[in-house]
């Protein structure tokens, strides 16, 4: 701790930070632009000036940029000093000379850092009377809008996009008063994290294009703390609504999970909530008159009572909904609506994490790993946010070393980056095909899944001879395994990453072996295993049977009524099987949010709330339980699945859920009856939580138009909906200060209208939120000190003539079921084609774009091919989940139809 005198008053602050961070952490309002808590300082904008004094006697002092000066014990600075105040006002006035002052038109208005800083410095009247500099704007694709005239040249955008996120197609161009931030030509911003520019840019240059389609000011939206449902990373988001339409997703700071940033799938993949394809009405085949909840419940209950029923749960439904279904149908009749391969992979993952010796990493732990081994994962497509963390991790080691050697603090971003150059901490990526993380890797290998696992086990064996030795490695493989093992053993905090991506249990096991071996040799190692969907982990933890068994049960007449929870079975099993299953079932009752193929076959369709219209708990891949909250109450019969299922159970005379009514009841019941979920009752305050007898307001205190908004429906104001499930209120009435971190509906502080107000919610800027980052880890490794290694002896990958080992390939834009309903995401989804090694294609006499005919599991398929020189031979990839790609339970061998050569 150091003593820092600010305007002659002493404060205790942490050493090692810069003055700006120290002042902000103490709660002072000091304006800044170019500094960002996650990206450090470059001293580009000169906005953060303060006066620094040599000692008590020094009365003149000198101006310094607070973001560039480290905190020193007994340092004396002044924020209020007239010269410093004047300097900051001058800088703003200067920045504003070219600013178009079009706040009224600008989408940033009302959540704009430039507005806030301008007000803060007191620059009210414009004196500059000359022409403003103007630019031409670019079309940057479906996600971001570009309005360069608003730029104040703080360089944050390219520091985020190029330096932090590794993007290549955005740059600062030109010189003097004409520096331009954009692409070399119009076109889609390629980086998967581009959406963060809307938050990083302190002005309205980069704004959310999807918000523009239904623009609403921040103060006019109802916000709620929510969770991204795009993948299993569990990123925290803020979801915002007006007029019954979800309008924006922004990132919600959680230092343990996603920090300040989220990926573009998470940010732009929300439009399905407003989509035409939404299931909004009750549908009973042959009985169009049934439109209200009560008669639906009666009809559905009658059908459920009629026969023997089974329930199919979902990895994209909340814990509460899955639990309610399991209670309704009974534990023995509860099946997981996931593909069988996925079922096995996720269960294996859970077992490894629970029974193994190594724990999963939090975000800061990923970012501080000093050696990384990735086995089989195409991370940008299976766990996007992790790639951004890895990018920081590989810089961290060299950065820290240099910082110590040169005596330059780590937050001196420009200096450290200059010094690091291309130096990276070791990252080894062994994947079946070229992937995005290759640019971070010190070595990338492309191998078939079998061979990846062999290399993995070989590395584990090199670390710990207790792991079974792998025979028949090639010389090159032998050399690399020895090298990788040595590097991992040299590291202090190694990180091993694998998961469902390669579709191989052996790969996951080999990763576990490596991690366990490292742990045994005393390393502070972490093991991250990806799982596919937002609640895959929760569903696996809950337990249940395979989907295959459900299909069997109906085929053999053990069950005839099926309740499907938030699931499209055509994405989980082969079409013929699902067809047969649905036809054989007497009644198919579906609860879901969006129409899909399964919905077409269902006889009862129950409209379920999306994450914006429901509350619930999800368990992320890390094993973290987190809560998401309803944003608005939709019109019509839509409600939470767990609520429907509870009412259904009641209507059926099933008393197991009778004592549960609100969310809290479900949460407590789950925690009480399932020991594996103990603790989920503490991840967020209960619904009766109040601050000064008030609920926490979902709407900002400036929310406008409440007496007019619905006047066209009913002139007398309607009673606002009340929320019995959470401590949040649906209106602007309620507490507007800083609530517990798990229930922050939006970030706002007096004078800080933009997302930069997060500073005020943190204990110290950039650090955890006031009462800790939200969520609670439920999976901790067992106490076993000596691991039981997997003893797998995979043979080298065989290349079979006329056969191809087809593995699934995931796409950040395209694979996920719901996000493709956003037109922007759909436009970036890859082509539905099989990619194979060029040499393989040549041997079949096929070229790019030709059709490949093949058989898989007795079905015939025909798909276009693409070739890639870097693919291993005998193996191909198929992007799955895309429109137009039929479900195949991959990976597996496909038999090629002989190509007729003319």
């Amino acid at each position, binding site marked *: 701790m150091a003593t820092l005198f600010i305007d002659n008053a002493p404060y205790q602050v942490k050493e090692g930070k810069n003055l700006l961070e120290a002042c902000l952490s103490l709660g002072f309002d000091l304006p800044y632009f170019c500094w960002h808590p996650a990206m450090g300082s470059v001293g580009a904008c000169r906005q953060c000036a303060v006066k620094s004094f040599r000692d008590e006697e020094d009365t003149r002092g000198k101006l310094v940029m607070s973001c560039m000066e480290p905190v020193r014990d007994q340092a004396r600075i002044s924020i209020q000093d007239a010269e410093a105040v004047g300097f900051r006002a001058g800088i703003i006035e200067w920045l504003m000379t070219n600013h178009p002052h079009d*706040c*009224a*038109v600008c989408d940033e*208005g*009302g959540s704009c850092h430039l507005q806030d800083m301008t007000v803060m410095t007191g620059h009210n009247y414009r004196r500059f009377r000359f022409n403003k500099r103007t630019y031409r704007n670019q079309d940057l694709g479906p996600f971001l809008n570009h309005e360069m005239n608003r730029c104040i040249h703080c360089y944050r955008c390219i520091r985020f996009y190029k330096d932090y996120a590794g993007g290549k197609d955005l740059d600062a161009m030109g010189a003097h008063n004409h520096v331009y931030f954009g692409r070399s030509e119009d076109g889609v911003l390629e980086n998967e994290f581009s959406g963060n520019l809307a938050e990083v840019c302190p002005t309205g240059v980069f704004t959310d294009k999807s918000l*523009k*389609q239904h*623009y*609403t*000011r921040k*103060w*006019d939206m109802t916000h709620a703390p929510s969770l991204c449902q795009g993948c299993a990373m569990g990123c925290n988001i803020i979801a915002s609504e007006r*007029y019954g339409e979800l309008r924006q997703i922004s990132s919600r700071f959680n230092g343990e999970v996603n920090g300040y940033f989220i990926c573009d799938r998470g940010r732009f993949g929300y439009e399905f909530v407003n989509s035409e394809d939404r299931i909004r009405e009750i549908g009973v085949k042959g009985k169009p008159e049934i439109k209200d909840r009560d008669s639906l419940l009666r009809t559905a209950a009658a059908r459920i009572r009629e026969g023997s029923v089974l329930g199919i749960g979902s990895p994209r439904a909340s814990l509460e909904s899955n639990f309610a279904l399991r209670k309704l149908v009974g534990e023995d009749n509860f099946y997981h609506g996931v593909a069988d391969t996925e079922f096995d992979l996720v269960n294996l993952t859970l077992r490894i994490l629970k029974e193994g010796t190594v724990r999963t990493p939090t975000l800061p732990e990923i970012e501080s790993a000093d050696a990384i081994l990735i086995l089989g994962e195409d991370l940008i497509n299976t766990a996007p946010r992790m790639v951004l963390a890895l990018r920081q991790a590989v810089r961290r080691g060299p950065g820290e070393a240099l910082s110590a050697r040169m005596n330059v603090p780590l937050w001196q971003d420009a200096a450290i980056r200059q010094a690091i150059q291309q130096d990276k901490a070791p990252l080894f990526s062994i994947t079946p095909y070229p992937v995005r993380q290759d640019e971070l890797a010190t070595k990338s290998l492309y191998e078939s899944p079998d061979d990846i696992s062999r290399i993995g086990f070989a590395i584990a064996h090199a670390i710990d001879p207790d792991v079974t030795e792998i025979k028949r490695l090639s010389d090159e493989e032998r050399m690399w395994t020895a090298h990788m093992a040595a590097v991992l053993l040299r590291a202090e905090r190694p990180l091993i990453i694998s998961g469902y991506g390669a579709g191989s249990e052996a790969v996951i096991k080999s990763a576990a072996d490596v991690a366990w071996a490292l742990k045994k040799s005393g390393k502070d190692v972490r093991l991250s295993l990806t799982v596919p969907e937002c609640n895959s982990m929760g569903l696996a933890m809950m337990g249940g049977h395979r989907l295959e068994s459900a299909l069997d049960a109906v085929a053999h007449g053990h069950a005839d009524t099926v309740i499907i929870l938030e699931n499209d079975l055509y994405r989980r099993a082969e079409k013929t099987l699902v067809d047969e299953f649905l036809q054989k079932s007497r009644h198919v009752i579906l609860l879901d949010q969006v129409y899909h193929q399964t919905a077409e076959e269902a006889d009862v369709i129950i409209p379920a709330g999306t994450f914006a219209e429901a509350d619930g708990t999800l368990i992320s891949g890390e094993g973290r339980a987190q809560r998401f909250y309803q944003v608005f109450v939709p019109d019509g019969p839509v409600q939470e699945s767990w609520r429907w299922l509870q009412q259904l159970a009641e209507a059926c005379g099933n008393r197991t859920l009778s004592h549960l009514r609100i969310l809290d009841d479900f949460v407590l019941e789950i925690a009480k009856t399932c020991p594996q979920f103990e603790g989920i009752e503490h991840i967020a305050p209960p619904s009766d939580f109040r601050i000064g007898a008030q609920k926490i307001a979902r709407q900002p205190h*400036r929310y*406008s*138009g*409440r*007496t*007019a*908004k619905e*006047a*066209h429906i009913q*002139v*007398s104001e309607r009673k606002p909906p009340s929320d019995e499930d959470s401590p949040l209120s649906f209106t602007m009435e309620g507490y507007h200060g800083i609530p517990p971190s798990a229930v922050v509906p939006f970030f706002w502080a007096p004078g800080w209208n933009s997302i930069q107000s997060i500073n005020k919610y943190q204990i110290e800027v950039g650090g955890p939120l006031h009462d800790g980052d939200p969520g609670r880890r439920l999976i901790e490794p067992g106490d076993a000190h000596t691991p039981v290694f997997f003893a797998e002896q995979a043979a080298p990958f065989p290349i079979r003539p006329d056969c191809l080992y087809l593995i699934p390939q995931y796409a950040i834009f395209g694979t996920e079921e719901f996000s493709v309903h956003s037109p922007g995401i759909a436009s970036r989804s890859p082509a539905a084609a099989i990619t194979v090694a060029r040499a393989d294609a040549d041997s079949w006499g096929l070229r790019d774009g030709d059709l490949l005919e093949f058989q898989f599991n007795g079905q015939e398929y025909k798909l276009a091919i693409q070739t890639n020189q870097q693919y291993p031979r005998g193996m191909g990839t198929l992007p799955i989940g895309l429109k137009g790609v039929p479900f195949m339970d991959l990976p597996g061998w496909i038999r090629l139809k002989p190509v007729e050569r003319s």
Partner: protein
Amino acid sequence: MEKLENISLTGRKKVLEKKPMNFLERIYLPSIVQGLAITFKHLFKKKATIQYPEQRREFSVNFRGIHSLKRDEEGRERCTACGLCALSCPAEAITMIADERKPGEEHLYREEKYAAVYEINMLRCIFCGFCEEACPKQAIYLDGDIAPADVDRKNFIYGKDKLLEPLLK
């Protein structure tokens, strides 16, 4: 000294004595004649009311009547749906839905963004004029008439059809 509990908090309380009425007061007649005299006097005075709506008074220059959404010199809608009027409205009576101006609509809307829907709930409006004051685009003025009466509440929801200045031509 008066008793403490009898002293009024405001200090303005007066205790009135109730005297019994005398004979003249009791027969009421003089009071009635007095009252009628005043009434008849007013028959010959100037009238205090006017025959509204046939006759109208002159408004003060800063009278605030019904809002109008303005157009610029070229007839384009000035409002850019910034929401500041709605924000400043103490009665929460204004709501709008913004839309993007499409290429080819430059002659209709002055700014890139415009209000596709703009509604004021006139039952709620208190004619304070804050919206006029807040507007950065000089797009809304309370320069209209007194809001007419109606028997249906629905008709007090004024949309763009009623608010927008007609095109002069």
